[in-house]
């Protein structure tokens, strides 16, 4: 329990938490005080001198002294004044200095209207410029497709380098120069290397780093129609705010969730959104009319009639669901084709691995932490996951957990942990214990002790750790010395830990790794230790998929071999990404009609006989379940054209038209969600994670548009001079207009962060119970997976054999890329620029033996086909293994585990 203190601010007494600094406390009390260098996730450094307040010795002290609020610990009986004239004048003076070199280019600045510097300047009262001399000017740098650089606007708060280097572990951004020529940038033009660089958009208090993707289709921030959304680019489920204008999605911002992503997002999540605006978008229904060989556009009514006729006349209809579609969408398709004929469009291997992960978490006694809780763990063991590329935000959380142990050394010196500069000075390069076991070198290696080996070797290490912790856990035999020493030291670190964490996943397609991670946790529990277990999942609703349960793609392939089916409905799924091309081809050939519901053209839509345009995350509502088992609702941002509807609404309309009248009861999202819960009771509660569509505050809806929204009477003037009726939203308590309740909405319905005087992302302070804590009303989402405290799961025993390279054969290991491995984000022009070309990864030893270099090309026999791939050498890879980038554009889909032979070398 936090120690409380009574403090007096401007004559009023408040009871506050004494572990915080004064600035945090003031902001938590919802009082206004200016600041720049302090950031809630990064602590205090006292650099900008902006948050000065008067502090008084006692009630007799009338003069007081100026102190920086961010550097003052809260002390019982403290007397301070924010409103003191001298303090106010000081703060206005500091802003005036900071602004001497600022270009005052707000009218042409991308940050304008959402600028912390604007807000703070206004708040301080500084409005008249006295500085008459020349301003310093800089050359800007090219920093890649995501960020725009405008150094003249800089006020030297140092937040960018503190975030980039200290928080996100980047090393190619730095500060140069001294005095009035301080410069933040790279040593030369080039793409920023860190995967979290996009956060500089929100971390920078002014317009030095702005969103270059927004710049390409710029619109003023107050002209955006926004809605609370959930990221679709991996399985972590970060909360986002998506903004639209003129039918185009314009940008993604962080939606603060105290339990999930906090203040940050990864660059794939922030900049991958542009697939929504892609030219490959499917915007109209496409039908193959009788006698015609190609698809032609149809209107909504024709499409529904035609497709309903097809379904009515079909003897058997098979449905293929998707882990990138919402629970509601999958459930509706399942209702159409019946449970028997519903299959998930993912390979059996992935499906069973994910099911296994879920069962371990749901039927065991081990808790899985939220993303935010991962930051608090002090010892982390990562088995087989290249987190930076498979679940980037978990990698960022692990980078924070690295600090947990070293930060403790500040306590005996009475240095509060929020004193960032002092703590870092004390800690230096010391890092807490993190262990990374992966086949190839990864970015997290820089903060970890590493192990390199095949999936089986990694699993054997996991078993060895479990065996070292508890003597009754199954042990791996014939361990080499490296594994013995390492497993011994990992088990020692785990035993000493207060809050240890094991992270694993299905990325390497190895059941043994999933099992070994569970065994470590079981062994810890047996030894009476506290432990948590985190599994990654590949897609935004992978966990929802296995919670719903059912059959995988392989079974669908078998089913059509056994029994003739004539119609196939594939929803939001490109099957050619899921399995080998021949297998998918053979499967699709079995059907007369292939109806595809999707939003973007892909190899599967090319084979369709009918295509239905469905909404992406920005044009749909629904529920996803993330890797932690947290059900989260995402909301429609805008209505593009009437044919683009949620998958579940299209399927329901088809059902109703084809005679399944009982489904006409399903009118809005809540009806679907409640029907889902009725059939699958373990989803109980997901209907109440957000208020129902009928929810109103003082009879009013929550507006998606801020009150400064402009142009609504003019934006349709090219079509009509009458202001058209705005679209209605029957699925949520939000309106597509600027009318409605102007106070703070419930936490799950926040379409943008704004508070009087606070137009930037810093307005988040006003939405939190306390700074950095949960949102008012609790962080949104509901955890569906909680451990059973009394469960006594038994150990897994499938210890794999040691890996022995075979002469002339290479075992392929899957390699992941943050930009490239994800299906949707590669359609965004910015992401596309950073997608690597196809390649094969070799170990330095093998490359030397084959006498190849990075310029060489290898000819490989994979699945009966010959592929030619250029070589990349990875220093971590062991001989006998070859890295194969999965689902990278241009690479074929293979089934793991697989070994290849090299049939030719071109140097």
């Amino acid at each position, binding site marked *: 329990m936090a120690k409380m203190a009574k403090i007096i601010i401007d004559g009023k007494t408040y009871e506050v938490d004494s572990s915080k600094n004064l600035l945090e406390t003031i902001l938590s009390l919802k009082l206004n005080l200016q600041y720049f260098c302090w950031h809630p996730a990064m602590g205090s450094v006292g650099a900008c001198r902006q948050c000065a307040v008067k502090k008084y010795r006692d009630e007799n002290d009338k003069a007081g002294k100026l102190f920086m609020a961010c550097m003052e610990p809260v002390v019982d009986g403290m007397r301070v004044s924010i409103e003191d004239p001298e303090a106010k004048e000081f703060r206005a003076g500091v802003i005036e200095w900071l602004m001497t070199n600022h270009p005052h280019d707000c009218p042409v600045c991308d940050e304008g209207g959402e600028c912390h510097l604007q807000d703070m300047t206004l708040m301080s009262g500084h409005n008249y410029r006295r500085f008459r001399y020349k301003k310093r000017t800089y050359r800007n740098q090219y920093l890649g497709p995501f960020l725009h650089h405008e150094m003249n606007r800089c006020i030297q708060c140092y937040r960018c380098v503190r975030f980039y280097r200290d928080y996100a572990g980047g*090393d*190619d*951004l*730095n*500060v*140069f*120069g*001294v005095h009035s020529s301080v*410069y933040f940038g*790279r*040593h*030369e033009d080039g793409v920023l290397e860190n995967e979290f660089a996009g956060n500089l958009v929100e971390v920078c208090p002014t317009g030095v780093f702005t969103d270059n993707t927004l710049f390409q289709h710029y619109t003023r921030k107050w002209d955006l129609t926004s809605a609370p959304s959930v990221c679709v680019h991996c399985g972590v489920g970060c909360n986002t705010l998506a903004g639209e204008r003129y039918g185009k999605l314009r940008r993604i911002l962080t939606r603060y969730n105290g339990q999930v992503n906090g203040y940050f997002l990864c660059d794939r999540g922030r900049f991958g959104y542009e697939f929504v605006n892609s030219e490959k978008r499917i915007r109209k229904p496409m039908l193959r009319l009788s006698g015609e060989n190609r698809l032609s556009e149809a209107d909504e009514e024709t499409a529904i009639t035609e497709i309903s006729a097809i379904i009515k006349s079909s003897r058997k209809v098979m449905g293929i669901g998707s882990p990138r579609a919402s629970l509601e969408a999958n459930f509706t398709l399942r209702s159409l084709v019946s449970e028997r004929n519903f299959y998930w469009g993912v390979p059996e291997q992935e499906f069973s691995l994910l099911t296994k992960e879920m069962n371990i978490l749901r039927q065991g006694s081990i808790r899985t932490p939220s993303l935010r809780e991962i930051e608090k763990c002090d010892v982390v063991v990562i088995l087989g996951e290249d987190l930076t590329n498979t679940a980037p935000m978990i990698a960022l959380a692990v980078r924070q957990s690295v600090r947990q142990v070293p930060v403790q050394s500040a306590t005996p010196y009475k240095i509060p942990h929020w004193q960032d500069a002092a703590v870092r000075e004390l800690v230096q390069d010391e890092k807490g214990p993190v262990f990374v076991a992966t086949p190839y070198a990864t970015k997290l290696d820089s903060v970890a002790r590493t192990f390199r080996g095949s999936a089986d070797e990694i699993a054997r290490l996991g078993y060895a750790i479990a065996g070292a912790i508890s003597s009754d856990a199954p042990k791996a035999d014939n361990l080499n010395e490296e594994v013995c020493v390492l497993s011994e030291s990992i088990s020692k670190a785990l035993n000493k830990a207060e809050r240890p964490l094991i992270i694993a996943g299905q990325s390497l397609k190895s059941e043994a790794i999933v099992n070994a991670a569970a065994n470590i946790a079981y062994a810890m529990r047996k030894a009476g230790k506290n432990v948590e277990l985190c599994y990654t999942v590949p897609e935004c609703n992978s966990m929802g998929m296995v919670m719903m349960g059912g059959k995988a793609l392989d079974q669908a392939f078998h089913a059509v071999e056994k029994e003739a089916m004539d119609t196939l409905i594939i929803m939001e799924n490109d099957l050619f990404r899921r399995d080998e091309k021949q297998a998918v081809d053979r499967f699709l050939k079995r059907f007369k009609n292939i109806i595809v519901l999707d939003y973007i053209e892909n190899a599967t839509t090319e084979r369709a006989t009918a295509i239905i345009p469905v909404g992406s995350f920005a044009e749909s509502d629904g529920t996803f379940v993330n890797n932690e088992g947290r059900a989260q609702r995402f909301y429609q941002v805008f209505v593009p054209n009437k044919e683009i509807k949620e998958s579940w609404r299209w399927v329901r309309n088809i059902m109703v038209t084809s005679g399944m009248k009982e489904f006409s009861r399903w009118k809005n999202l809540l009806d679907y969600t409640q029907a889902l819960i009725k059939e699958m009771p373990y989803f109980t509660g997901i209907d109440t994670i957000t208020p129902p569509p009928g929810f109103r505050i003082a009879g009013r809806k929550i507006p998606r548009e801020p009150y400064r929204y402009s142009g609504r009477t003019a934006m349709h003037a090219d079509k009509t001079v009458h202001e058209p009726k705005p679209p209605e939203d029957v699925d949520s308590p939000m309106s597509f207009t600027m009318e409605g309740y102007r106070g703070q909405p419930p936490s799950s319905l926040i379409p943008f962060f704004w508070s009087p005087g606070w137009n930037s992302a810093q307005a988040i302070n006003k939405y939190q119970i306390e700074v950095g804590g949960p949102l008012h009303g609790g962080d949104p989402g509901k955890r569906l997976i909680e451990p059973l405290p009394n469960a006594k799961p038994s150990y897994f025993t499938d210890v794999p054999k040691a890996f022995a390279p075979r002469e002339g054969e290479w075992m392929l290991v899957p390699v992941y890329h943050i930009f490239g491995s994800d299906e949707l984000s590669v359609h965004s022009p910015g992401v596309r620029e950073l997608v690597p070309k196809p390649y094969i990864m070799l170990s330095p030893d093998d490359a030397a033996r084959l006498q190849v270099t990075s310029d060489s090309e290898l000819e490989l026999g994979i699945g009966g086909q010959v592929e030619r791939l250029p070589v990349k050498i990875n220093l971590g890879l062991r001989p006998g293994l070859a890295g194969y980038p999965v689902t990278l554009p241009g690479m074929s889909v293979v089934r793991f585990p697989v070994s290849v032979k090299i049939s030719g070398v071109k140097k």
Partner: protein
Amino acid sequence: MDFKFTEENLSRIESVRKKYPDSKAALMPVLYIAQEQNGYITREVMDEVALVLGIKAVDVLGVATFYTMYHTSPVGKYHLQVCTNVSCMLKGGYEMLEETVKKLGIGVNEVTPDGKFSIEEVECMGSCGTAPMMAVNNDYFENLTKEKLNEILDSLK
């Protein structure tokens, strides 16, 4: 222009490195060695320093541009650093600076066309007891007067 450390300097760097816990910490003395060899520190020099020390070029640039005693553009064979901080100012530091400028016909932070002299106005160099003063490369000249200054400059020509 390619910059490579001489064999002798490489061995000096090697011994400097041993004094510090990691190579990043050895950056400042190594930059001095580089400046000594090359006269000033160009981007190529910084890249070479990064390579030799095994650190990022971005960190070398940060340090090299922070400290004014690392020159990122050419200076004269004799680099005159005239102090105008408090003690020197009171004892005529600015007059000394003006005299230097007049005598050499160049401004502050400029180099004579023959590459022989350059002038820099500096803050306190810790020789207040003998103000006004200036430093020519590594040597201090103290208790300056205009005459003494001219004498020194003439002797350097």
